[in-house]
């Protein structure tokens, strides 16, 4: 008995010690201040996504650093730096990890927040979020995976173009950083030799806020608060004077217009389809003798964004998508092959395995998460931090990744609604899933397509991790079979298709001027 008490009291003591401190250190709060290995001073020559060139939107000549206007801006920095409080120091620590990084995180957070399917109406139909009235329930948007993929892509591509323009004018005007002009200004971020006008951070703020107004209009208060904090941080840190920030922000806003104009006409707005279309998809599939997809949600929910496959792609045209990228037809739902694959899903449904469940849940990225594209952004970000890319290279790599992910969504969704294949749980009701079942047709797997695309372009960006990314993509793909969400064909074809999408991103990357 004494022994038992002794063991118990030891256990209690250990537990108490641990229990005292329940604070959690989150990975993204441990990132050091960005100190790029290369400044990429010539990034103004890189190939933009939508801009005709870096000078499409001119940036006015800055005031000379010996003018009273500039001196008063230097004095503003000194004034702030004299009395920095802890909150301001925390702001510097947070934002100095990188502008592209932090705004990508903010976007992931907005996606996760809004990735919740709307609750049904009393009559069993479903309401849709409205961009025109974003605050009414359901709050706009429902940032499901295709919506999210598109949001990440527009923001990243626009940030990239804004930074190309910003870097062009930095080199052209070569106004030195405040801490290089005046010894009284302390550099509270790592120093570099880039021109400080226009501010690259502010260019990111300007372009991102404009895009987010379109993509997440119900969260403008939060977005604006982050933007103000970010701009102020540059001044607090002695890295930019106010006119650097203002010029950068103005440039970013102008660049954003090209992207918002594209977004308004890229056909995503019509991707929801109509009740007639949903019924047609079912009846047309049935007419071919195949079993059509039926929503497994109760009450039955309209299929998720059935016309997203028509959304304008970034990396290739629609003809290339059909001729070179799209998946071949799935096995017929009447075939022995299909039955065999359904039996395989049944096996994974019936046989609980803790290690497989871990894989399923690690990659699930379902409701209220940043979606699979967001997961690949998180993976990329944590690896990019270690690579110490310049802001403009961060933007370029994020743009490549996210254009791949969005185009993967387009390819995958076009396939899903072309074949309108039933989920395993519909084909065989004995199949139960280990994670939430998405409300759209089965073939091909979205996770597999996203992961194939992301792992391919990331393997190009960080060749040393190419094998690791490939393994992760395979695991992400198989996680959907293990979860009893998808047949093996869905996963295999999705992965192949995604890799092809990724190869188009590589084709762009080798010619965009950043890698030579």
């Amino acid at each position: 008995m004494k022994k038992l008490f002794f063991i118990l009291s030891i256990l209690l003591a250990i537990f108490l010690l641990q229990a005292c401190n329940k604070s959690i250190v989150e990975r993204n709060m441990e990132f050091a201040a960005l100190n790029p290995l290369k400044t990429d001073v010539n990034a103004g020559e890189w190939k933009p996504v939508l801009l005709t060139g870096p000078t499409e939107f001119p940036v006015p000549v800055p005031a000379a650093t010996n003018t009273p206007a500039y001196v008063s801006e230097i004095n503003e920095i000194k004034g702030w730096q004299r009395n920095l409080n802890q909150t301001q120091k925390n702001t510097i620590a947070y934002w100095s990890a990188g502008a592209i990084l932090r705004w990508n995180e903010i976007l992931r957070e907005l996606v996760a927040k809004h990735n919740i399917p709307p609750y049904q109406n009393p009559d069993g139909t479903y309401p849709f979020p409205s961009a025109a009235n974003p605050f009414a329930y359901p709050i706009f948007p429902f940032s499901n995976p295709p919506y999210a993929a598109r949001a990440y892509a527009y923001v990243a591509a626009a940030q990239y173009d804004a930074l190309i323009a910003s870097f062009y004018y930095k080199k052209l005007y070569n106004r030195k950083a405040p801490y290089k002009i005046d010894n009284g200004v302390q550099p509270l971020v790592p120093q570099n030799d880039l021109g400080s006008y226009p501010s690259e951070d502010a260019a990111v703020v300007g372009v991102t806020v404009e895009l987010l107004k379109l993509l997440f209009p119900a969260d403008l208060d939060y977005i604006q608060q982050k933007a103000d904090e970010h701009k102020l941080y540059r001044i607090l840190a002695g890295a930019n004077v106010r006119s650097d920030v203002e010029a950068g922000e103005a440039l970013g806003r102008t660049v954003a217009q090209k992207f918002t104009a594209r977004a308004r006409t890229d056909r995503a707005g019509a991707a929801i389809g109509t009740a007639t279309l949903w019924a047609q998809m079912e009846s047309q599939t049935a007419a071919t003798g195949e079993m059509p997809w039926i929503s497994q949600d109760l009450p039955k929910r309209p299929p998720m964004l059935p016309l997203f496959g028509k959304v304008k792609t970034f990396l290739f045209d629609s003809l290339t998508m059909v001729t070179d990228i799209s998946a071949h037809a799935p096995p017929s739902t009447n075939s022995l092959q299909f039955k065999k694959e359904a039996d395989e899903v049944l096996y994974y449904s019936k046989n609980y395995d803790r290690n497989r469940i871990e894989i399923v849940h690690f990659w699930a990225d379902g409701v209220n998460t940043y979606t699979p594209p967001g997961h690949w952004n998180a993976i990329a970000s944590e690896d990019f931090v270690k690579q110490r890319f310049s802001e403009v290279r961060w933007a370029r790599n994020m743009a490549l990744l996210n254009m791949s992910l969005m185009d993967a969504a387009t390819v995958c969704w076009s396939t899903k609604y072309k074949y309108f294949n039933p989920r395993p749980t519909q084909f065989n009701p004995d199949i139960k899933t280990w994670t939430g079942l998405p409300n759209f047709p089965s073939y091909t797997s979205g996770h597999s397509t996203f992961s194939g695309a992301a792992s391919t372009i990331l393997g190009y960006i960080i060749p040393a991790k190419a094998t690791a990314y490939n393994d992760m993509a395979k695991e992400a793909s198989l996680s959907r079979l293990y979860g009893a969400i998808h047949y093996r064909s869905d996963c295999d074809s999705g992965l192949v298709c995604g890799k092809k999408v990724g190869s188009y991103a590589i084709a762009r990357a080798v010619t965009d001027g950043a890698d030579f």
Partner: protein
Amino acid sequence: MKNIKSIRIIIIFCSVFSFYSSFAQTDIDAIMMNKKQFCAGVMYGSGSWKNYWEGTNKRDNANLGTVSTKEYMLQGNYGVTNKLNVLFSLPYINTKATAGTMHSMKGLQDLSLFIKYMSLKKKIGSGTFSAFTIGGLSFPTTNYVADYLPLSIGMHSTNLSFRGMLDYQISNWFATISDTYIQRSNIKIDRTSYYTNELHYSDEVYMPNATSFNIRTGFRNNRVIAEAVFNKWTTQGGFDISKNNMPFLSNRMNSSIIGFNGKYNFKKDGEFSFTGGFNSAIAGRNVGQTTHYNIGAFYLLDFNKKKKIIASKS
């Protein structure tokens, strides 16, 4: 053996405080085992809910139908001294939803250990007043999946509980009141990011602590117990499930339940006893509106008796 202390039963109050019935099983009555007595038994419980509180909004969900939980539990109580008891319980749990596609879950859940000390016992007026302090430790016995609400079998946190309890009995009528503070450890989940009111980049989830207030009153002698129970579980923090979202482990789960328990000993001071109980949630937040019943059978081993037998043989 002849007095109330020796009633060889632990009446378990299954605090149904989360989506599934959770068995941070508590020893929450004023009954003590005598020195060197060991009472052990098995219990079967079943709880289910159709409606739940999404935040404070009560709703049902056609994609879940009715969510049910079945528990098979081993438990025991040993008298170290007449005033100091140690207790344990270990449930095997099986969850299921009648609708939707989500797979059921099953497995061994958390081992709970309690030390129960009767610090005071004295005649006050025409009755007997007693005071208790109870310390508990529970921890998961398997690597079960917690991040699968509402169908996970438990929360996978390691819990430390401290309870103060007062009891007053006049003749065969009693009332017991207790309050418990539950310190919960953080938990690890299978994903590296999750959303509460904001996005977190960690596989560790902060688990808010909780309190549990309990009143029970009724008839009690050494053959029969019949009691009514009220329990209020309050999570100290956490967040509400947003509209049409899935529940999460660190939700603010609150629950008020009322119930009735009974125990019957077939023979006066016999080895076998049987228990049964029923309870139902009357208010809640981020939990299912559970109704729950349980039945159990227990057996007493008296090591004092055995010694006597051995002694007489020799």
